[in-house]
């Protein structure tokens, strides 16, 4: 009986910790700017313009519109250097119609690799055969 109680307590504690880790905050501290990723037919990679990053927080992106001829358009985003290459570690996030108007935090290794003032872009790889574009707001930092 005692073992059973300990087992329940452990499972509930782990579950609690995991769910807390999944909660994300909302604010971001460097002003957002608009972006448009355009994927005309035959092109599936696009980038934001570079912006400086001042801390080790996640970048932030909110997709507001997905338009075009693709049936289920989506793109996968990651944080890259100003010169379009990867940092030493990269995290990937897929954006589709289900993410419209959702702020998404993009983990990255920019600050760890290059330090204060590192310029980053968001790279997007479109997943689809027909042309489409996605647009919204982004920021290199978040809280």
């Amino acid at each position, binding site marked *: 009986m005692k073992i059973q109680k300990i087992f329940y307590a452990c499972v509930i504690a782990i579950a609690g910790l995991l769910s807390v880790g999944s909660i994300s905050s909302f604010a971001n*501290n460097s002003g957002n700017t*608009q972006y448009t990723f355009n994927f005309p037919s035959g092109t599936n990679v696009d980038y934001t313009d570079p912006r400086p990053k001042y801390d080790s927080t996640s970048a932030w992106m909110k997709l507001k519109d997905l338009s075009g001829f693709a049936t289920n358009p989506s793109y996968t985003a990651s944080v890259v250097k100003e010169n*379009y290459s990867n940092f030493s570690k*990269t995290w*990937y*996030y897929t954006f589709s119609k289900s993410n419209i108007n959702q702020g998404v935090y993009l*983990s990255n290794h920019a600050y760890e690799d290059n330090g204060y003032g590192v310029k980053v872009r968001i790279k997007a790889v479109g997943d689809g055969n027909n042309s489409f574009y996605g647009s919204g707001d982004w920021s290199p930092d978040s809280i």
Partner: protein
Amino acid sequence: MIKKLLPVVLVTLLGLTLVGIKVYPDIKALIASKKIEEATNKQKPNNLNGKHPVKEEKFPFRLPAEEEYAKKYPNQFKIVKKMYFSMNYIKNAEGEYEENHNDKDGISHMQFYTDFDQRKNRANFEKIINGKIVETIQVLLKDGIVLRQRPNKHIFTRQREEKNDNHFIGLFNNVTNSEWWALIYNNYPDWSYKEGKKFGMPVYKIKGNITDKVSESLQGPFTMVVSKETGALLDLKCYGHESKEILSITVRKIKINQGISNDVFHLDISGSKKISNMEFNISDIENYEEKTGGTDTSK
């Protein structure tokens, strides 16, 4: 028996579901990363070659409609283009400015001497909170070698400048190649300008309103001053909803294309200990914890 087992099964299922929710994004990301690397064999042409960093010749409109819209406002678009291509007009610059994103983050004070033609940069960054300097970083880029120092921590790092990387030539300088042209792009009816003078230079004095389409976090009234000849950002104030500054860039001094004395390209690192780049970069973060997940893309 069933009565005893049922709670065990239910709690285990709950645990497994939550583990699944936690792990699923990582598995999904791993699959996505493989797809991406396959799709990105051809990257955008790199425009960062050469000693003096230059940008591509054509303005990168994202959509044909944006290009058509710019044609309707040629004078305003001319200012956007000048800002975007500012590094093409600036051979050397020295200056001092303050950047404030919001009060709790304090003020960033930057000082820079940059010779783009000779690819040399000597710049300082100070973080000031409640009037007190809490962090200082000094940088020197010269002959392809980068020295960065945190004098208050007595540490420094030395590295070779990477090929095709403009990080250090533009470090601590958000004035001569500013990102904030984005605030006046594709929203021409929302702002107006008049010509004037600042720091002895002809300038565009811009005044307008940022809508949520341009930036959700910065929406509200704003003013901006841009050098007419070079596109350098000389002042920016974003006031937000409550008409108090939520972003400001205040240039205190600036000289553009007037040459820079070679004497400034020096950094005294005596008494400081050499550490690795990563140690240096995260040395201002208390109790830094390595970020979990992600794909190793260092090779």
